[in-house]
């Protein structure tokens, strides 16, 4: 055990006391602090250019209202009382050209204006759009080559709808005060389920935060991915360096391959934990500071670290075992690329899991190692979380899988670390599993 600890200590220090690692620990501070600072400094000011918006209103009934509503918006929402501009102004330009009724020519003419940056976007309001039943002519189309800029189409959609509603109410004989009363509504507020504590008291449902509901599980999944991605190549490089520099033989004259592998793995896991703990602590302190700690379901971090440890042992031992058989970094990276797919697939599927955490796909994936490492943490981080039995089952299956991988990797490591010559194929690696030392 003393020898294993000596390996752990040396390997850990070799990684943690490097400038690159210390810099990586500063990333959370830089990321969170940077985001916070940037939002204060720049806010909506990132791009304050006017957006020229050409509107071809075939009904002829909405353009005046749009221009007036935009004038109000530019005055009240875009410029603060102090006179400071906080967002881009929209400049509504009614279409006055000769192709208003010619679809093809109108589209080409206005598209060209957007392409030459004479305008930012344009819209066509169908002639029958204001009517209750406009038939084929009830079109409201928006065209631009900036699909990610949603503020203008959102405003346009909402404003035209309000203008049409007002017009209909007016035609029905209502005055403006009545219209306001009839159309006013409160926004939808989303809550978690109500619960009862041990003493029978109601635990108030908490307000759902859509942003947190997405970013917390996705962030944790990313953190597991990065921690494993960061730790395992270190193991791979360390094994390859010892093999290429012929240090392995010196080491193996003092300790067994299993002791060496254990020391390296534990050191790798500790490096990963140090890295992820820095992120988790920074996140926790930040949320606590803003009194938003309830965004993270209770116990999430405990499960996060348990699954992370198993993930690092699984992938770390796989990397160490396979790279022990390789003759250079390039070969080992080829193997690593295949192994990392087992991590990449569930990470990419985490969006599907976030969308439907209790669906059969999410439940299935969160029970199959090694995909379950990321999949189950994703589910745990989304309130109310999966049933306890699923978490324990996933944990148990992962434990069995991790131990199996550890056994196999120790076999590969034992033979590979002293093997010279050509890099083995996957088939040869399989044969090594059952070969005598």
């Amino acid at each position, binding site marked *: 055990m003393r020898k294993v600890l000596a390996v752990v200590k040396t390997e850990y220090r070799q990684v943690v006391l490097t400038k690159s690692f210390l810099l990586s620990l500063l990333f959370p501070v830089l990321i969170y602090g940077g985001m916070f600072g940037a939002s204060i400094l720049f806010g909506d000011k990132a791009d304050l250019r006017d957006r020229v918006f050409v509107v071809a209103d075939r009904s002829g009934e909405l353009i005046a209202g749009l221009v007036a509503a935009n004038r109000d918006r530019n005055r009240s929402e875009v410029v603060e009382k102090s006179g400071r501009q906080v967002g881009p102004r929209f400049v509504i330009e009614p279409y006055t050209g000769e192709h208003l009724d010619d679809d093809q020519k109108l589209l080409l003419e206005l598209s060209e204006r957007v392409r030459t940056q004479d305008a930012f976007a344009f819209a066509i309001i169908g002639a029958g759009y204001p009517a209750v039943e406009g038939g084929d002519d009830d079109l409201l189309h928006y065209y631009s080559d900036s699909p990610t800029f949603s503020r203008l189409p959102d405003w346009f959609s909402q404003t035209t709808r309000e203008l049409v509603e007002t017009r209909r109410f007016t035609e029905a004989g209502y005055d403006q005060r009545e219209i306001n009363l009839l159309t006013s509504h409160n926004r939808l507020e989303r809550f978690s389920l109500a619960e009862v504590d041990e003493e029978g008291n109601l635990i108030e449902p908490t307000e759902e935060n859509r942003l947190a509901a997405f970013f917390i599980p996705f962030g944790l999944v990313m953190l597991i991915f990065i921690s494993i991605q960061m730790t395992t190549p270190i193991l791979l490089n360390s094994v390859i360096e010892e093999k290429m520099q012929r240090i392995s*033989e*010196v080491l193996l004259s003092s300790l067994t391959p299993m002791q060496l592998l254990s020391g390296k793995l534990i050191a790798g896991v500790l490096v990963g934990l140090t890295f992820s703990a820095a992120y988790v602590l920074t996140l926790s302190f930040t949320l606590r500071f803003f009194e938003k700690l309830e965004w993270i379901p209770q116990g999430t971090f405990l499960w996060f670290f348990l699954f992370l440890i198993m993930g690092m042992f699984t992938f770390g031992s796989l990397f160490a075992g396979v790279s022990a058989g390789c003759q250079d970094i390039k070969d080992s990276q080829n193997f690593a690329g295949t192994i990392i797919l087992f991590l990449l697939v569930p990470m990419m599927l985490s969006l599907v899991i976030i969308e439907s955490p209790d669906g059969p796909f999410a439940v299935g994936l969160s029970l199959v190692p090694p995909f379950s490492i990321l999949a189950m943490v994703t589910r745990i981080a989304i309130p109310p979380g999966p049933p306890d039995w699923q978490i324990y089952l996933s944990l148990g299956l992962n434990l069995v899988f991790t131990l199996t991988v550890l056994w196999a990797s120790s076999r590969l490591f034992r033979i590979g670390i002293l093997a010279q010559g050509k890099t083995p194929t996957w088939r040869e690696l399989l044969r090594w599993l059952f070969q005598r030392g």
Partner: protein
Amino acid sequence: MVSLFDVVKRYRGHTAVDHFNLQVPEGALFGFIGPNGSGKTTTLRMILRIIEPDSGSISVFGKPHTVTANNAIGYLPEERGLYRKMTVLRQLVYFGNLKGMSNREARLSAETWLERLELGAWRDKKLETLSKGMSQKIQFIATVLARPRLLILDEPFSGLDPVNLETLRGALLELCREGTTVIFSTHDMHTAEHLCDHICMIYRGGKVLDGSLESIQATYGEDTLRIGFRDRRELKPGELEGVHTLRHLGRYMEMRFSGEPHGILEQAMRLGRVEHFEIVHPSLHDIFVRIAQPVRSESPQTTAPAPATDA
């Protein structure tokens, strides 16, 4: 100190070590010689339990070998290996830790050895800043740091310049005087001949010689002549009667003879002015060539023909 009994090791159809027996007495400076690929390193690795024999038994310090016994064994592998990015002292302490030493013990021992081999000023430098000779001395320190009872050195002097070679040879002899048993493998017969008191020769996985240098040479008798001419003339095969296996060694020629040496001297004097005439024991190199040549002409599976002589 070390015993190998009927040890066999095969690698995918190739027999690296074939029914090998060995006894290394305590306190010996034991030369383990043989050409490249003869099975030396495999045998040493088995003694260290880095690899396991397919059959046979190995005991170290009089007991069936366990890995824990390696704490008392220092091993210098043929392929040197140190961490290039780690400082000298830190890696020496690490290697000491792996031999069961505490940090303090390892540091003290490392500092003593560094001073002794005139490397004290380099203790906090990264290995990559050191010359090759210095690195080899560091590797030697890593091997002897924990004061091992048994030292196993695989080609310890290869690639060393004469100054560093002398330094390490001196340190090695001193360790021997202090009671450390040394098994040292080399394919350089000359080095083994000058340094070792016991020699075992391995060829194609089998033992072909075993004993003290004197006993080995006595087995082969004094059948070797060295003749040198003032004008450095070179003899041709068949020029001297009763002489065979002629080798030119620069200042003189070495040859095996049969019959009366006086007759050969007379023949040589007729050819030119003889400056050097010496009857010697055959060198290890010569003995090895005699053993290996007949084997080489046979199939690879043939075992070595010469009997081993026990010391």
